[in-house]
């Protein structure tokens, strides 16, 4: 049975230090919800509060309708996968997986059946009677996951589970985790600082910074319509360029240095002329022959196979990065002057302070409650 996790005004303090001051989030039943942010943003702290390993200094944590603030970690019926796996080194793979079941009211047969089933699902049955130190990182990861899921927990918590694996295994384990989570349909909270990992496995992502949630949304929405400049730069790469909005009755003009662009995606509520920050991802530029477009000088390039990345200096002296699909024999040499067009429907425009996206389509499930 999966649950809905509702967190209202969570507060976490370590002595004088306030890590979280009134954080609210609602995690839906059965979804894979990722807490994403740079180190020190409070994501692991929040996860450990859900698990019960960190005390809760304020606010309420609900599993469905039950407040769990004071419940001991052993009673919360949570499956947890730790960053270093925390596999018991003195127990075999099978004993590790069976460990949590021994505490449930199950018959021996039932227990063995569940264990074997889980070993098979995770494809670790051939290592069942080995000690964990003989296993590779990926196999250990599978054991940790099997141990956490086999007890049929209400909630699965994962604390940077892939950070100790090499790049290739990480990609492989992502889909393992994703598949298992889907098939079991268990509410999962996943912590990572790796945005690509978060994008690839999550139903929804909460981007965190300094103890505050910046944006909760689907990977697609967070990437395409980030709520603020932090999210825009933290998720993927974005060029942040100065611009001005000039509004009149007929049209909204975005002026970047000497070039005017007509914007059709701005919110209706945007009524004032103002200085803005324009966020353009490298792939949202295209090279054009149209000399009325933005002018720039190629400084350097990196050939990466599928794409070629160019560093370009704009007339305003701002340095930007653009990505163009590589084609045969056409690398643009440094020193060349080029003209750049914009895929206007894709770019984002932020207020001068970077706190608000002026483009329509931002879906932020997070409502910041004022303290």
């Amino acid at each position, binding site marked *: 049975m999966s649950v809905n996790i509702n967190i209202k005004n969570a507060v976490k303090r370590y002595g004088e230090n306030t890590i979280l001051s009134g954080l609210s989030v609602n995690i839906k039943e059965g979804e894979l919800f990722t807490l994403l942010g740079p180190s020190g943003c409070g994501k692991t702290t929040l996860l450990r509060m859900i698990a019960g390993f960190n005390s809760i200094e304020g606010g309420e944590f609900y599993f469905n309708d039950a407040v769990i603030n004071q419940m001991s970690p052993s009673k919360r019926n949570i499956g947890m996968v730790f960053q270093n796996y*925390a596999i018991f080194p003195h127990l075999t793979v099978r004993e590790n997986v069976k460990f949590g079941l021994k505490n449930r009211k199950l018959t021996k047969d039932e227990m063995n059946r569940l264990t074997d089933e889980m070993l098979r699902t995770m494809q670790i049955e051939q290592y069942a009677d080995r000690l964990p130190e003989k296993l590779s990182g990926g196999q250990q990861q599978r054991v940790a996951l099997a141990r956490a899921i086999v007890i049929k927990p209400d909630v699965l918590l994962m604390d940077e589970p892939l950070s100790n694996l090499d790049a290739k295994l990480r990609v492989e384990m992502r889909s393992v985790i994703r598949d298992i989570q889907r098939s079991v349909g268990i509410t999962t909270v996943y912590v990572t600082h790796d945005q690509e990992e978060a994008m690839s496995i999550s139903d929804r992502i909460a981007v965190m910074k300094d103890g505050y949630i910046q944006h909760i949304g689907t990977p697609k929405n967070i990437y395409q319509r980030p709520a603020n400049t932090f999210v825009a730069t933290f998720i993927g790469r974005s060029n942040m360029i100065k611009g001005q909005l000039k509004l009149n009755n007929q049209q909204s003009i975005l002026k970047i240095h000497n070039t005017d662009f007509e914007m059709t995606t701005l919110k209706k509520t945007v009524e004032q002329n103002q200085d803005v920050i324009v966020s353009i991802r490298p792939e949202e530029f295209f090279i054009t022959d149209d000399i009325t477009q933005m002018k720039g000088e190629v400084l350097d390039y990196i050939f990466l196979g599928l794409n070629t990345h160019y560093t370009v200096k704009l007339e305003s002296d701002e340095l930007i990065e653009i990505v163009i699909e590589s084609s045969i024999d056409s690398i643009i040499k440094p020193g060349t002057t080029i003209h750049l067009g914009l895929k206007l429907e894709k770019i984002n425009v932020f207020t001068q302070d970077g706190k608000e996206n002026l483009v329509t389509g931002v879906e932020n499930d997070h409502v910041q409650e004022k303290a």
Partner: protein
Amino acid sequence: MSKRKLDIWTTISFVILITYVLFLIYPMFNLVVESLVNKETQTLSFEYYQKFFRFPYYSNTLINSFKVTVAVTFLTLLIGTPMAYFFNMYEIKGKSWLQILIIISSMSAPFIGAYSWILLLGRNGVITNFFKSVLNIQIPDIYGFNGILMVLTLQLFPLIFLYINGAMKNVDNTLLEAAENLGYTGLKRFKTIVFPLILPTILAGSLLVFMRAFADFGTPMLIGEGYRTFPVLIFSEFIGEVSGDRGFAAAISIIAIGITTVFFLVQSYISNRKKFSMSALHPIEPKKIGGIKNVLLHLYIYIVIGVAMLPQGYVIYTSFLNTKGMLFVDGYSFMSYTQAFKRLGNSIQNTFVIGGLSLVIIVLLAILIAYISVRRPNILTKLIDTLSMIPYIIPGSVLGISLLAAFLTPPLRLAGGVTIMVIALVIRRLPYTIRSSAAILQQISISIEEAAISLGASNLKTFFKITVPMMSAGVIAGAILSWTTIITELATGIILYTGRTKTLTIAIYTEVIRGNYGIAAALSTILTILTAGSLILFMKFSKNKDLSV
């Protein structure tokens, strides 16, 4: 012109091997021969062994030693394990001070504890008399089995504590959290997770306690009275003015080594099967607990440590009492100290000369042996490594006997001199120092040495300019620990010393035997100050405060 050039390390390996053959293998071999040859007929015979097992007077000492040793090992585990567990799991007031007290009490010579307990709980002890005269209660006798058990338990539980304390530091907190997460808490979690994880350490600690208790000579000698143990028998058979019989003593020694070997092998067999590597990314964080649990926890820890420190404290107290002949009388003064310096001043000097010389040789050899066995593994170095561990299972008194017998006559007539005392201390202490040096060396990446060699430094230059300096902090810390065991060594020294080479510890022992408790107390206090001083030095040099004994 030049012949095949020998690697400098091969040469060093051979020199070390020859040293071991001369000062360990030869004396041991000699001991075996003595135990098997009848002195009068000069023929091979097992009569000494038969004699031992035929007369309960002798063979009972074996059973006695066994009982004491097993009981001590068990009790030290029972006291030391929970204490180390609590120290790591919960917040305890004055933790670092308590830890220092535990270490100090582990470092004093056991027989000093024995004699202090006699002053407190003996027939005419302070506490005994108090109970008798004020409360009219006759408290149980401290002599014999119970006394040995109490003194050795209080003396040796710190070793278990230090071992397990170190192991607990390697238990990753997430393992405990994972267990809790799966529904295991408290005692259940200790049983299923913590205990199996620290079991190899428990076994290693038990073996050390077993060896120490089995080989301890001073405690049963002072407090055992009729309850004679193995080392007492060896000593009295060898030194005994009436019944001195060297062949017989040799036979008993061989039996003793046989027993310790069996235990050593059993222990290493079990712990090799239970071994797994642990390193804690997230060490356990001590938690605060409240209420009655917290009170009981503190009571337990403070009482045990208090009782363990009591004999030390009382000895220091009595050292300032006035004495009259052999009795303590009212009033305080430095009388005992003046007498001690007047009569036994040079024993302090001897301690520094013999101990210091031993220490230098120990450190040098330990670094060299650790280096060749870690960095140049081959048959030769493997052999040296094995040889160097043999003294671990040889009781001190046995080593003393074998050295004395081997070097009593020319060509190598060392008996009675400083040299033989130094050799004995070096051989006894080396296994420990080699182990700790090897552990340090294993943490240093070999590529650093390879870098030096690729830059043109010779093997020896690389060793002295690169390896040794990198090892130095750890080695110095290990050396200071060795120093404290060297200055409190009794079992070997008591057999090898002469008037000229009497050390502080031996002087204390002989003064206790003579009944000069005042002088003994003064000397003990000096010894305690020396040990505590060394410990402070250790803390300065050692980055982490965990001791490996």
